[in-house]
């Protein structure tokens, strides 16, 4: 019985091996056979890229039926004549069904072919596309929704500025970080120590730096009145020049032109960590009583704020870099979060015109909050009920508040 079972197992094993061998032979035979010809992409369409300044044509095609099996990508060929020589202008990865040729001349007509390429470098050419010509558009309709919403918000800002000019009183919520500015300057004055102001590490083309310099102007005016020493190390030359002018004007308007010195604002270096090393050195050596970090910051934010914390300075920070906000919140006494940074200058100036612009921002917030609530409600109702009406409305909301790439 035992011998029989052993024979049976042996037979089964032998059978399995034979079957497997036959399978692999069949596979080898199959792979050795001539592969079917590679099928090309079809329905190639070339047309002017919409909403641009010209110089670009968008090419679209229907994927090759062999896409899933063998295709590694699509080569885009271009010619200015249907019978002329075609040259390669780019390559689209597998799965892509569009390519933007951003190197065209508006005065020329172009013809395109799309070539499917497989793993063995076999190529299969599509039919010729219809002629296409690039041109500049007078309006980018992809941004129409942005224009409408932006126009509404800007209109509201201008309306409330005009409203405030008439002398209407506007309510502003208290911003703790800005309320503490006078206290922080007063403390430095009492201690006889300088005030350090860091306007971020980006150039004047960044709106956070602009916000930082405007706040510097307001702060410098108070500093001039208190006759406290100010130190503004900068990491960009243009920021240095602008900050110098701003501080000078602040001292003049405070009636303390005699107390101003060009040495208050100085250039250090454009290099991020070289700048941090210099600022940390200033902090440790001069031990400022108050440190302001207002502008755009990256990894250096925590290094500076922790050094400031270690010397016991009052620290007020403000940035619109979301990744750096937690660091400032952890290390500083007060932090202006996002929009508070941009509101600070208006808040400190107390001018009705500037305050009116803050009120206009609230209209933008109302629009954003309404869109979020309505959009979430529509999506939820659609998910529960499956009603196509709510689905369409949710889709409409989505389109209204998103920017579509061309």
């Amino acid at each position: 019985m035992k011998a029989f079972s052993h024979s049976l197992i042996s037979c089964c094993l032998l059978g399995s091996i034979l079957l497997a061998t036959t399978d692999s032979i069949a596979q080898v035979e199959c792979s050795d056979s001539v592969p079917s010809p590679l099928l090309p992409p079809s329905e190639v369409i070339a047309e002017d890229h919409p909403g641009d300044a010209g110089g670009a044509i968008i090419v679209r095609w229907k994927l090759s039926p062999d896409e899933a099996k063998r295709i590694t990508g699509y080569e885009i060929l271009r010619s200015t004549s249907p019978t002329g020589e075609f040259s390669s202008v780019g390559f689209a990865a597998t799965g892509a069904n569009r390519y933007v040729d951003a190197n065209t001349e508006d005065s020329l007509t172009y013809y395109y072919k799309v070539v499917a390429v497989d793993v063995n470098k076999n190529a299969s050419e599509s039919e010729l596309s219809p002629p296409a010509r690039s041109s500049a558009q007078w309006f980018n309709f992809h941004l129409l929704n942005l224009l409408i919403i932006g126009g509404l918000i800007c209109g509201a800002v201008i309306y409330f500025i005009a409203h405030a000019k008439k002398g209407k009183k506007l309510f502003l919520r208290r911003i703790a970080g800005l309320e503490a500015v006078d206290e922080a300057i007063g403390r430095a004055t009492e201690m006889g120590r300088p005030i350090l102001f860091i306007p971020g590490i980006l150039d004047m083309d960044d709106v956070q730096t602009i916000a930082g310099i405007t706040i510097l102007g307001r702060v410098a005016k108070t500093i001039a009145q208190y006759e406290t020493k100010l130190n503004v190390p900068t990491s960009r030359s243009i920021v240095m020049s602008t900050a110098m002018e701003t501080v000078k004007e602040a001292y003049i308007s405070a009636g303390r032109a005699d107390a101003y010195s060009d040495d208050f604002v100085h250039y250090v270096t454009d290099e991020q960590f070289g700048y941090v090393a210099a600022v940390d050195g200033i902090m440790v050596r001069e031990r400022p009583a108050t440190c302001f970090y207002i502008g755009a910051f990256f990894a250096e934010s925590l290094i500076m704020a922790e050094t400031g914390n270690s010397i016991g300075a009052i620290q007020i920070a403000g940035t619109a870099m979301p990744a750096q906000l937690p660091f400032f919140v952890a290390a500083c006494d007060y932090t202006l979060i996002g929009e508070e940074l941009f509101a600070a200058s208006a808040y400190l100036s107390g001018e009705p015109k500037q305050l009116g612009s803050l009120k206009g921002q609230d209209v933008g917030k109302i629009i954003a909050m309404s869109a979020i609530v309505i959009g979430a409600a529509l999506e939820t109702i659609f998910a529960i009920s499956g009603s196509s009406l709510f689905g369409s409305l949710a889709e409409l909301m989505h389109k209204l508040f998103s920017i579509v790439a061309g």
Partner: protein
Amino acid sequence: MRRQIPLLLTAIVGFVYIIQFFIPHRPFNIFEHLFTDWFLIIAACAIWLGVLNLLKLSLEKVYKRGKDWPYSVVTVAGFLLITIAGFFFSGGRQFQNPGTPFDYIYVNIFTPLSATMFALLAFFVASASYRAFRARTREATLLLLAGFFVMLGRVPVGDLITQWLPVGYRLSNLTDWIMNVPQTAGQRAIMIGIALGIMSTSLRVILGIERTITGGE
């Protein structure tokens, strides 16, 4: 006049940038490129303003033997060393090529010094976290708990100690939920506020209401 011209220039450039965003056609797209090029040229030229300012202050300090003047000696020496090595001993335009004195200083002095400053961040993160995560208030306690779960959920031991729970309720899933829902919601609220703040500030500057940076009050 000294104040009007900067305001006028700001308004023109600001409006051209806004218009070309919606109207990509000539002449606005040409102006946009032109203004961008001008800014780059001005920024490149302005570097000399910064360099001269740095040298002036440092040399003054050394000359007058001001407070901590030896640091200024190091600054000036470093500036002269890299400038002379780059201009005169590194093959002209090929100064960045491997093996030149400029490259040697960059790779062996500048890069390690920068990396050292960056590495300090690790210690500062620890000290800042220690203060931020002290459970003194209700909000700080919430922050502490969220931070604790997120950190634990990011390492394999997080799932190991919660493997008795159904798959969707394990620590890595809780971490994902914290990061994707409350964290993202909070961050987006901040981003919306920032976008509105940028619009408002830009309008104030372009319309000449905010004049601090153009030399006004």
